[in-house]
């Protein structure tokens, strides 16, 4: 019933208002998506074809060799593997660490819990980029630059506050009765934490995972500050390094950009519903 009422203005409104609504939607959609269409189009052309006065080019023949260059010389697979590994690890650690802390803060009885929660949440206010200079010093002093840890640790540390915030909120809404029953049955505390409570946290674990992934997947400031060799460089470096190497081959640059953007866009389109839900939950409560 209510969906009918809701969409009435759009389906049964005057033709004029319906036209206005559709024009608005389509204009915004074009503004958002056309630059990407343009990117894709130029990535299939040759560099000489680009100096045109038209908006899009119809290439004489599709230049898939641009993509071959991007794939091979952009170090695409290696960087993709690094990005994937580091981000998956970051998600797992963020979920574990923030869930454990959230449990201690909301369920356990101790005096400092409020203070500890406040301190951990304060991380949300600190601008990441202000820590670039001192962290570079710290990491080079203890020989941690150019290792996976120099990315993993700050990624986890800066995703943790929001994760903790979401998880304490969610944990408070779960009734304690199940836990109490488990304790009476003789469960130890760690069984309660990981065996009873953690499975019930699935929705907030999903949200935290999505937020952490989105936040860190495209990060490159820390990566370009703390890393020097190719060993742990992440996906954005495909673009950053390739454009330097192929500075005059514009078409190949377009191809590497399209290729680098592809994994995130494809995953987003497939998991559209879950990601929308996750982002919304995380942002509104965060």
């Amino acid at each position, binding site marked *: 019933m209510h*969906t009918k*009422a*809701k*969409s009435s203005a*759009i389906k049964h409104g005057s033709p004029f208002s319906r036209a206005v609504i559709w024009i*608005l*939607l389509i204009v*915004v*959609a074009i*503004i*958002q998506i056309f*630059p*990407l269409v343009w990117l894709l189009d*130029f990535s299939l052309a040759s560099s000489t074809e680009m100096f*045109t006065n*038209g908006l899009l080019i119809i290439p004489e023949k599709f230049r898939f060799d641009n993509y071959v260059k991007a794939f091979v010389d952009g170090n695409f697979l290696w960087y993709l593997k690094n990005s994937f590994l580091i981000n998956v690890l970051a998600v797992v650690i963020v979920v574990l*660490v923030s869930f*454990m802390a959230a449990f201690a803060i909301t*369920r*356990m*009885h*101790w005096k400092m819990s409020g203070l*500890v929660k406040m*301190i*951990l949440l304060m991380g949300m*206010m*600190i*601008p990441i*980029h*202000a*820590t670039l*200079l*001192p*962290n570079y*010093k*710290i990491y080079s002093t203890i020989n941690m630059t150019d290792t996976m840890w120099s990315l993993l*640790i700050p990624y986890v*540390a800066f995703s*943790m506050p929001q994760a903790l915030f979401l998880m304490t909120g969610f944990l408070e809404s779960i009734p304690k009765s199940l836990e*109490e029953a488990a*304790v009476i049955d003789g469960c*130890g*505390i760690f069984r309660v934490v990981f065996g009873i409570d953690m499975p019930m946290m699935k929705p907030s674990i999903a949200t935290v995972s999505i937020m952490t992934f989105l936040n860190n997947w*495209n990060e*490159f400031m820390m990566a370009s500050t703390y890393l020097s060799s190719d060993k742990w460089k992440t996906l954005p*470096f495909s*673009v*950053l390094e390739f454009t330097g190497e192929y500075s005059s081959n*514009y078409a190949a*640059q*377009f191809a590497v*950009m399209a290729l680098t*953007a592809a994994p*995130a866009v494809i995953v*987003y389109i497939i998991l*559209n519903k879950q990601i*929308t839900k996750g*982002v919304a939950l995380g*942002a*509104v409560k965060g």
Partner: protein
Amino acid sequence: MKKMYSNKAVIAVLVGPGLLLFAFAVLAPIILSIYYGFTNSTGMGSYDFVGMKNYKELIHDEAFFISIRNSALLALGFICIQHPIAMVTAYILDRLGGRAEHFFRCVFFIPNVISVAVIAYLWKFIYNPDFGLLNNIIKFFGGEGKVNWLGQDIAIWSVLIVLIWHGFGWGMLIYYTGIKNIDPTLYEAASIDGAGSVQTFFGITLPLMKPVIQVNVTMALISALKQMETVYLLTNGGPGNATQFTANYLYQQAFRAFKYGYGNAIGVVFIILCVVLTVITNKVFEDRDLKEEKKLNKISMRKEAI
């Protein structure tokens, strides 16, 4: 049961990793920044303590104030341009329903999942004076199309456009979620009363969206202040310091101009600015909420009295 839940060792095991991470990755760098902020370190070799010299220099540093101004401009751009469009789009989207709703929501959000590295280089090409998309669009409509988009005078506006464009999906999605949470019976009541789309938007959606608007505005302000990555790749603050932002400036000072001590001093001020801005916006919105609650209480009390 009680004993088990107040076991100190267990608590330490559970909170320990989080606190350690915080201390190592957040607290330690802040302390180190405060320390180096008082020195003339170049980043390498020995250095001396110079007291407040860096901070005194900062007060007279034009580039720093340009950065703050640019952040303010960006915040205004988010709030005055991006948010109104995002909210209206979200409102329409919500009433669209079905596949079209799903499709447009997806399209609007896609730029947001693409790496800043790609976005920055893509827009460099869009602004390219020779074969850039923007000049070609101007030519397409009969103009001359020889605008130097990243030149001194208009570079900051070009940068703002990229940031507003890239963040649009995010803002839209948050408004969209807020709108989805509005009780549909309110819309039914409005449509029975014969309210049109525009009336419903201003009469029901907008007032009920207040908390969501507050969240979104807070995030816009803070992300405008924290902006770095797009600018770093698109213009690196140039030409001159025309598109400078604080984070980019402190990075440049430390690693390009080798004024590591000065860069850290900017970092300290930057952290303070971010904390103060967060606290103030939260306070302002909290006070407003309290006042409004009181008003509502009064109204309902009066109604009861009647």
